[in-house]
């Protein structure tokens, strides 16, 4: 018991991770649900141990298992349900919009860098007059 159950939880999580690292939308989603199965079991094992006892219903004879982890997992399951549903709908939408289920193709690359333009040269600061007759030019530049 002490080894088998943690092993099961761990293998569910491990398999889930392997699926998540693949590149197809559905595999990612299925992987995530495997992870959540594994994790629910893991929390139960971590908090309540692997020993056998009565369920925490007070009309049954004790000793009871620890009820708190069960409550935690319940909350986690519900939240997990919500997020899975959202993720499912989202991936459906993403698939419809992009036409690909390849996770990588959903990713976009950052902008290419722009080439550095011409620059000021200290040996030859722009000799073009900055003022006087040039006033018009400066003015034109500003107003255009």
């Amino acid at each position, binding site marked *: 018991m002490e080894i088998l159950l943690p092993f099961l939880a761990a293998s569910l999580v491990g398999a889930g991770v392997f699926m998540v690292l693949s590149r197809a939308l559905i595999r990612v989603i299925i992987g995530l649900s495997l992870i959540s*199965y594994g994790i629910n079991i893991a929390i139960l094992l971590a908090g309540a141990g692997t020993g056998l006892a009565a369920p925490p219903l007070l009309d049954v004879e004790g000793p009871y298992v620890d009820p708190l982890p069960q*409550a935690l997992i319940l909350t986690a399951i519900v939240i997990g349900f919500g997020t899975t549903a959202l993720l499912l709908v989202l991936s459906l939408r993403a698939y419809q919009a992009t036409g690909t289920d390849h996770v990588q193709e959903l990713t976009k690359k950052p902008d290419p860098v722009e080439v550095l333009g011409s620059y000021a040269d200290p040996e030859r600061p722009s000799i073009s007059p900055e003022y*006087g007759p040039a006033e018009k030019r400066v003015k034109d530049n500003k107003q255009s």
Partner: protein
Amino acid sequence: MTAEALLILSVIAPFLGAILAPYLGRSLKARAGYPLILCFLPALFLVQYAPAARANAPLTAGFDWVPALGLSVDFRADGFSLMFALIVAAIGILILAYGAAYLGKSERHGRFFSYLLSFGGAMLGLVLTDNLIALFAFWELTSISSFLLIGFWGSRKASQDGAEKALMITALGGLALLVAVILLAIAGGTQQISTLEFATLRSSPLFIPALGFLLLAAFTKSAQLPFHLWLPTAMEAPTPVSAFLHSATMVKAGVILVAKFGFLLDWGLFSQIIMYVGLATMFWGSYLALRQNDLKALLAYSTVSQLGILMSLYGSGHAFAATAHLVNHAAFKAALFMVVGIIDHETGSRDISRLGGLRRKLPISFIIALPAALSMAGVPLLGGFISKELFYEEMFHEGFLPMLIAVTGSIMTFAYCLRFLKVFFGPLRCENPNVHEASLRLWLPAAPLSLAVIAFGILSINPLKGLVFKSDTLAVWFTNLAAPSFGYEPGHLYLWHGFNLILGLSALTWALGIGLHLFRDPFHRFQQALTPAWNNNTLYYKALAGLEHFSSWFTHKTQGASFASHLRVIVLAFALIGASVLWRYLPENLSPVPLAFWLVALLIITDIVGVLMAQNRLSAIIFAGLAGVASTLLFVLLSAPDLALTQLLIETVTIILFLSVFRFLPRLHTYVRPRSLTLIDGLISLGVAGTIFTALLAVQTPIADRIKDFYLDYSKSIGGGYNVVNVILVDFRGYDTMGEITVLSVVAVSVFALLRIAVKRAKSESNDD
């Protein structure tokens, strides 16, 4: 008004003016510059505290900003600071007047004066402050406001570039200064500059790094080799700005730093380093000034060269000579810039090769420029001569090599001064046929500076005392004002030292300078031939391009990497965590496993294999669902009926969900990973599984009692229910459930929006992403 208030006001007033300037500029246009002169007056009034400063009882004032950080804006008008503040304020006033006449109608006057005044305020703060952090703050403020000033004509690429270059290089120095002031504050145990003690600092291991960073800061700001590249391009600024920045303010900040902390720097190799860097800068600056065709560029390199002189003098501890030259340089350089502005304004050109004989068309400007240029060249009877003599004398004491560099540099200085004056002589050459003298408003602000240049020298001859030639008025007054700050004896400036080696060297300088001017064409060809393919300027742009390139490469590599590899980082981190406790907590005796558990285990393993091997969507979904059922069974076996029930129902609903979208889901493509990646992913997954596994083993024995008994004890009596899990959910930890149903509600809202707002297809997506 109290003295303290005046001192604070003298720094604050320009900033207030900077805020007001846009409004004034809107109504008064360029003339806004005249009323704004008021902002520099408080600083000028500080002159009344000069006697106190000379008596080494300087005026202090200030206010706290962030006292918990030791950051207070303290001012201390000691001799040197006061002297400098007066120069800044005086030149600032002239620049404001000059700018008011210089700017055209279509300019953004308010903005211009606003930038200019905040720069002036920052400069005043920098010289007057006595707090290390405030010193840094004002230092950075000068960088920032000069950035705006240089880039005032921001629509031009060259202006933008010049501004950015100045900012980046001075900010580099600024960061060095930041480190330096922090180290000084740590080592000295105080943030007040006037209470720093050499002995305390010297004993600290941080002393040498602090000095190193301090020097780096000073060199960048004062455009010393090899950081001088920003100064010439800063000429892209409007000329009034150049006149302000490069005569008395911005570029002198580094010199101020060396002067203020001179008592620390005069130690070991440091003074030698500063002196040689300064001399090299002086030499190289005048060498480059000689080859310029643009009047402004010529002045820019001449500024580099003059800063070299100041730096070497302060660095080698000759504060008296340095201060004398500093005063002179401020006057003649500001005047020269203003004249260049006038020439540019009237002729429409600054190109030396296209100008000539302007003496006839611009007589007043010529009169203003002549003494200033000659003073820069070091011609006798003018202020520049006196301080150059002092420079020679000090370098003579330093040794042969410094002497040699100083003299060669000065020869070239002499030559480029003549070259500058060339535009006034010879036949008239000018592209603008209607060239005429500038208006009174334009040349008048330059005139006092030229007068000062003359006054520093000639006016001080005292005819009654014969040939003493003791120049004992304005310049001396200024120079001696700084005396208490450096601890030198108030001295005299002599026009005449008698026939000695120094005078001989000066004569040699003049002769060779004239010679160089006459043979400037071959020299120019020589310079052209020697021009290397790259210099520190190209290096700067290479570095910037390299930075851009690296940033984009790096970001591309990290951000643009595949999503899966991003996820790999997270799970890998998780996998690595497991290694820390791997196998340490194996339970000692294992309890037997009932048959039911074996069966569930078998089911789970089968499902896992099934999911991993699945070739189509349906089987993958079914195997995953079965894994859910298996975990339900496990919950039953582990006495968690609520969990089992919930999990089963959720499984049902999820399957319904999957099936209702089933037709629209993509097929289960097997995008083949490269074999190495499969291996890596497999290993990572194993690592994650290992972490979960070991962690589960490790936490089975708690370090403290678990709090479960409370729930079992009070669930019925206070909670009112037999099902402890449910009581926990709605009562003990009902707040969690509150959050949980909020999550569900948000899911409903989000899904509703996702499904009801129409999806644009990729094809029709506008191209702006």
